[in-house]
């Protein structure tokens, strides 16, 4: 955090000054470690084992915040007797289908609800990354599940959790993670001692957790701890995701993502959502508790914002125009399709996948096989010049005279040359004023896409093709200004906020959304950003003139709430858990919720409210159900649905690991998304032979002085000067073992690539004693490429493509490699070197990566791709276990 989010880290230091204990877990000692009370070095890819150890410590010692857990979580819910845990199936849960590599969720349900499971193990949910759809809401669950408030029932969630993590002992943590027992216990003690009525603890993570083949479950484990300890919805608590780009939260909320529409509405699927009603019901789950009950109004209002006058209740608001998903259309599938010649054109908008995405060679070869490419950026980046200046040009794999891709480079406006909002990492929208005009041909994306749409519509004006109706009927009438006809960003923000169609009056909150076509809302969760006709994101009341919540600086979604689920900061009766930690509470005299923040609860619903029989939607939430977007109003320690790789987190080894899984016969996540494409050869891991060809673990992260793929930092003289060269950090022990000299050269080899770097020998990296052997880890920054003021080889070239099944994010925080002294070969001998390693590791083109490595599944089939196109995906097999 001190390295990549330094200004955010000042608040950690403030907390430390006031007595907080700071723990830092990282494979490498960083500036954060230097300022923490305790640093725990960890083997990359083993965080679930560490966190699972903390869960066990809490449960074995009964240190959970029991009142909170009983009232606000599903700890007491009783699970189906058909459920079988990984502890009994050697690393698999019940319901695994080896043919599709996915789970049927029926046996994971609560008792008596087995028939309600929506997910039947076809792999379809994985391909559409449905885990991400449900980022802001729970999967359907019945509100009335059987419970045992004494938590003694052997099949209640609390007891299942206890058994599931019973082997995650301090000894096991040491054996898996390489963290000494006493350091682990120091962490577990401090975390539990700083939680409860009087105290809270916060958890901060970043892409060091998300970029794994089991990344969602890392965060699940953190959620379980924070829920058991009562740290959610309370001041000083929470799970804080530090995101790495100025508006990456905004580009998730208003998604430029294939499977989502604004406000986490799902992109329709051809088989599941043929009609508007089926699409809406898949979101609102009729009869269910919670605020998604209103989603018909959100969906109708979005389509109304898209298609304006053409969208009517009679034509289902032009739902028929929506494109439909059939499977995995994610960025990595796209790149493999480019290599196979199936994609014609590609837009890159302030993004540099030639350096920033996993498997750089696949990225560049994909771009070299397009009809056309449009790059919009501030600087000339590697993704625009791959055809003349890439590693593949050096090896002869791309020959400029033979590369057919037509490339348009369009200069972009910078953040000071346009106005608009960024959504930062805590959901806060901040409006930026424009300072100066963009230079020359540089334009905003707003300009480019508005005018692109205008030109497309002009060209199609006479078209009678059915497919062109969606473009011609589009509401695309934005006011423009200035010599370049720049569209008004405020007009777009007003549409995002939503308005009353008849009058144009901006809506004040999403509660005003209607499903009859009388409201249009571009992104329902942002409703209120233009409340009272005022740009609330532009508010800049000084921190000196308001309290510590600073509610009048910018605007946070939803409804300007700064802490989500803050009803949980009060006890079930609505009183603060303690004076010290009071935040939002029930004012009985006034008959409303009040506090420092906007209550994340219906303002006048008393704590004593109990829903009438048969209630659904928000009305079904009791006065003590704080988790209002969940299908049952509760925080989930156990997820009966919605997480595709298990109702509980389980330690799996990374897809590439030098070690056999010490906990289970199942080596790696059995549901991870793999691509068996000739270009995507994964290094072997145990129990496969030849893993010793790639004996070392490598991980990558950011330098303080550089940003992501370097497009905004290797091009800036001061930053380039501060960090001028690609390097690799190795421990003194590894340097001795391999023969690496400090400040000399080394090259690293994986089954995909070989890259070179200057050697930094440092005890920031330490050899870890893990399961009776020594594991060496090396660290690399991933910012470098062939363009800019400072250049170097790209660390991401080393990675293959394996994805988390829930969100299709790639495992690019851990892989295996070899490291050798000296510079890498150049030209064709470079390919020979990679080919030599592939041969030694038996990475043939037809090799199948074994997905199941335990007999417990009842079969030893290797599950391949689960694209709907593949025959296997059509076999909705019975559970094998």
């Amino acid at each position, binding site marked *: 955090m001190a390295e990549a989010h330094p200004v955010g880290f000042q608040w950690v230091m403030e907390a430390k000054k006031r007595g907080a204990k700071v723990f830092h877990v990282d494979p490498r000692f960083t500036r954060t470690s230097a300022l923490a009370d305790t640093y725990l070095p960890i083997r990359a890819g083993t965080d679930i084992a560490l966190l699972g150890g903390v869960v066990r410590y809490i449960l074995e010692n009964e240190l959970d915040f029991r009142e909170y857990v009983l009232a606000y979580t599903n700890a007491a819910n009783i699970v189906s007797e058909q459920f079988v845990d990984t502890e009994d199936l050697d690393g698999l849960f019940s319901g695994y289908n080896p043919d599709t590599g996915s789970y049927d969720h029926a046996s994971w349900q609560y008792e008596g609800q087995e028939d309600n499971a929506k997910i039947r193990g076809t792999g379809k949910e994985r391909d559409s990354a449905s885990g991400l759809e449900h980022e802001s809401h729970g999967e359907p669950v019945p509100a009335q599940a059987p419970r045992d408030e004494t938590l003694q029932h052997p099949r209640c969630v609390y007891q299942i959790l206890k058994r599931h993590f019973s082997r995650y002992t301090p000894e096991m943590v040491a054996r898996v993670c390489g963290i000494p027992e006493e350091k682990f216990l120091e962490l577990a003690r401090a975390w539990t001692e700083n939680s409860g009525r009087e105290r809270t603890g916060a958890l901060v993570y970043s892409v060091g957790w998300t970029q794994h083949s089991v990344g969602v479950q890392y965060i699940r484990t953190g959620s379980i701890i924070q829920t058991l300890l009562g740290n959610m919805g309370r001041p000083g608590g929470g799970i804080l995701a*530090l995101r790495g780009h*100025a508006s990456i939260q905004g580009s998730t909320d208003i998604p430029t993502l294939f499977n989502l529409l604004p406000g986490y509405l799902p992109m329709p699927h051809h088989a599941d959502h043929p009609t508007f009603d089926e699409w809406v019901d898949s979101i609102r789950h009729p009869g269910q508790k919670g605020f998604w009950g209103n989603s018909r109004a959100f969906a109708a209002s979005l389509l109304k914002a898209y298609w304006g006058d053409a969208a009517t209740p009679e034509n289902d608001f032009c739902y028929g125009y929506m494109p439909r998903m059939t499977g995995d259309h994610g960025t990595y599938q796209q790149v493999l399709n480019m290599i196979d010649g199936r994609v014609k054109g590609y837009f890159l908008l302030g993004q540099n996948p030639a350096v920033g995405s996993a498997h750089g060679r696949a990225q560049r070869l994909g771009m070299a096989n397009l009809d056309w490419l449009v790059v919009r950026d501030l600087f000339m980046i590697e993704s625009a010049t791959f055809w003349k200046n890439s590693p593949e040009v050096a090896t002869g794999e791309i020959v400029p005279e033979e590369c057919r891709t037509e490339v348009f480079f369009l200069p972009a406006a910078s953040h000071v040359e346009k106005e608009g909002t960024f959504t930062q990492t805590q959901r806060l929208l901040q409006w930026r004023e424009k300072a100066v005009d963009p230079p020359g041909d540089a334009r905003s994306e707003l300009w480019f896409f508005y005018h692109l749409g205008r030109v497309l519509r002009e060209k199609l004006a006479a078209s009678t093709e059915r497919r062109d109706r969606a473009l011609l009927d589009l509401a695309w009438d934005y006011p423009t200004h200035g010599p370049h006809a720049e569209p008004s960003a405020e007009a777009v923000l007003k549409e995002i906020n939503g308005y009353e169609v008849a009058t144009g009056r901006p809506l004040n909150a999403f509660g005003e959304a209607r499903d009859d076509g009388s409201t249009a809302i571009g992104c329902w969760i942002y409703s209120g950003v233009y409340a009272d006709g005022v740009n609330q994101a532009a508010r800049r009341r000084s921190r000196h003139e308001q309290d510590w919540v600073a509610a009048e600086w910018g605007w946070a979604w939803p409804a300007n709430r700064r802490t989500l689920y803050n009803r949980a900061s009060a006890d079930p009766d609505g009183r603060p858990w303690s004076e010290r930690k009071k935040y939002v509470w029930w004012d009985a005299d006034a008959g409303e919720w009040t506090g420092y923040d906007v209550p994340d609860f219906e303002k006048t619903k008393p704590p004593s409210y109990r829903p009438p029989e048969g209630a659904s939607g928000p009305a079904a939430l009791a006065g003590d159900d704080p988790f209002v977007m969940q299908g049952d109003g509760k925080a989930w320690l156990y997820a009966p649905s919605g997480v595709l790789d298990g109702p509980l987190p389980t330690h799996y080894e990374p897809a590439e690991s030098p070690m056999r899984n010490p906990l289970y016969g199942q080596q790696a996540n059995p549901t991870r998304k793999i691509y068996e494409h000739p270009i995507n050869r994964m290094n072997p891991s145990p129990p496969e032979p030849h893993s010793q060809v790639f004996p070392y673990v490598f991980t990558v992260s950011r330098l303080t002085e550089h940003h992501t793929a370097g497009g905004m930092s290797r091009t*800036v003289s001061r930053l380039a000067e501060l960090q001028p060269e690609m390097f690799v950090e190795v421990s003194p022990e590894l340097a001795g073992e391999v023969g690496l000299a400090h400040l000399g050269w080394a090259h690293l080899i994986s089954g995909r690539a070989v890259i070179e770097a200057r050697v930094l020998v440092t005890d920031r990296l330490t050899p870890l004693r893990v399961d009776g052997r020594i594991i060496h880890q090396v660290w690399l920054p991933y910012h470098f490429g062939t363009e800019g003021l400072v250049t170097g080889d790209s660390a991401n070239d080393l990675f293959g493509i394996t994805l988390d099944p829930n969100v299709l994010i790639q495992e690019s925080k851990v892989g295996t490699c070899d490291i050798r002294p000296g510079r890498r070969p150049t030209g064709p001998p470079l390919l020979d070197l990679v080919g030599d390693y592939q041969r030694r590791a038996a990475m043939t083109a037809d090799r199948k990566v074994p997905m199941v490595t335990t007999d417990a599944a009842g079969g030893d089939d290797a599950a391949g791709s689960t694209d709907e196109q593949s025959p296997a995906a059509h076999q909705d097999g019975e559970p094998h276990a």
Partner: protein
Amino acid sequence: MGFKTFIQGWPVYRQLTGTDPLGRGAAAQSARSAELAPRTETADGMARSVCPYCAVGCGQRVFHSDGKVTQIEGDPDSPISRGRLCPKGSASKSLVTSPLRQTKVRYRRPYATEWEDLDLDVALDMIADRILAARAETWEDVDDEGRPLNRTLGISSLGGATLDNEENYLIKKLFTAMGALQIENQARI
């Protein structure tokens, strides 16, 4: 020049007699530095902005004169950043004024070995033509069972995490209307 003026021109005298015994402020000031004013004071205007790098969202004050950015500083009013910026945020002025910024459209023909120039309007028009051709060539109306697909898998896009919400909104809206499904950004990565 009187004696008093003369002796006060001597830094050591000011250091010994004035309010700056360590000689690090007023005592060390020369006639020239006394006349200097920060360029933030003489700027034509100041825009309230936000740092473009990570997602912490530090407040920035962007000072400009004659249509050029002259200084970018942390915004002390911000409850998020309290006026601070990290090395990258502090280099924002260098970012937006970098001589490496591309300001002209560049075009690479198929099989070419060099860039050439192209008018922006022509580029926009050519891109629109290519989109329509790719759609026509790869359009999918319905699936095998006659259910609607309304899409093209011939067009891809990547990017958005560094852009404004308003921009992402228009991008998603336009691509969705043209049937382009394969829209992704850094949030997937």
